[in-house]
């Protein structure tokens, strides 16, 4: 199975000037662990709950601090044509838990380790 079977809905997005608290709120509301950061039409970063953990650990005030200062800038992305198993191996090797899926500069979604595990467990032939 390829990643395009997992994306295609709307990715959660926010702007770089969003506060960490608002970003945390949006993630919880959507039930996701990451949010794509866009500036105009361009994907400029990704903020994950691990980044929020780091910010909290550093004593950042989440109602004041901005996403742009804690996000991963210009994250690695992958294509919807990637195989689920290859993407999972790559994520394990690099240590990512969220991977933006892009096609022709358009963000199709963000796949998480959980999304990939779901496919791999449901279909052991993958």
């Amino acid at each position, binding site marked *: 199975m390829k990643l395009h079977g997992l994306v295609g809905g709307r990715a959660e997005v926010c702007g770089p000037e969003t506060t960490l608290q608002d970003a945390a709120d949006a993630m919880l509301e959507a039930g996701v662990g990451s949010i794509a950061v866009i500036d105009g039409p361009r994907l400029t970063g990704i903020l994950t709950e691990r980044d929020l953990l780091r910010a909290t650990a550093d004593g950042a005030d989440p109602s004041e601090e901005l996403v742009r200062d804690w996000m991963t800038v210009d994250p690695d992305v992958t294509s919807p044509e990637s195989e689920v198993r290859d993407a999972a191996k790559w994520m394990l090797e690099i240590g990512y838990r969220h991977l933006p899926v892009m096609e022709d500069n358009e963000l199709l979604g963000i796949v998480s380790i959980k999304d990939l*595990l779901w496919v791999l467990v449901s279909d052991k032939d993958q």
Partner: protein
Amino acid sequence: MRLRDLISTPPELCGSHISIAQAAKEMASAGVGSLGVIEEGRFAGIITERDVLEAVAAGFDVESEPVRCCMTRNPDVFSPDTDVHQAATFLLETGYRHLPVVEDELLGILSIRDVLVGVIDPGRVIDVQ
């Protein structure tokens, strides 16, 4: 493959009285997404980065609020003999991302990442976090 084969390090632990910010600091420095919480010398629950996210979203003062305010008490626990596919199915069905593995005592806390390693490549030895 069984959960016992995926436990590579002893669990990271904290007390329930420390602040949420301190727990976040310990998770971040250990590179893990959860801590086992000990009360009166016994395993009492876990705190995960999702709990920290919820505390931040709710506007808690994380520097002063203690772990006991947002930890999960008496979480579901697993035997080290549980099959990794069974554990993966449980994680996906419940939405949990951390599995405390207990046999008399807390042996470790496996993350969804550890379980993915077991599912995708059981032969591989990897230093998972």
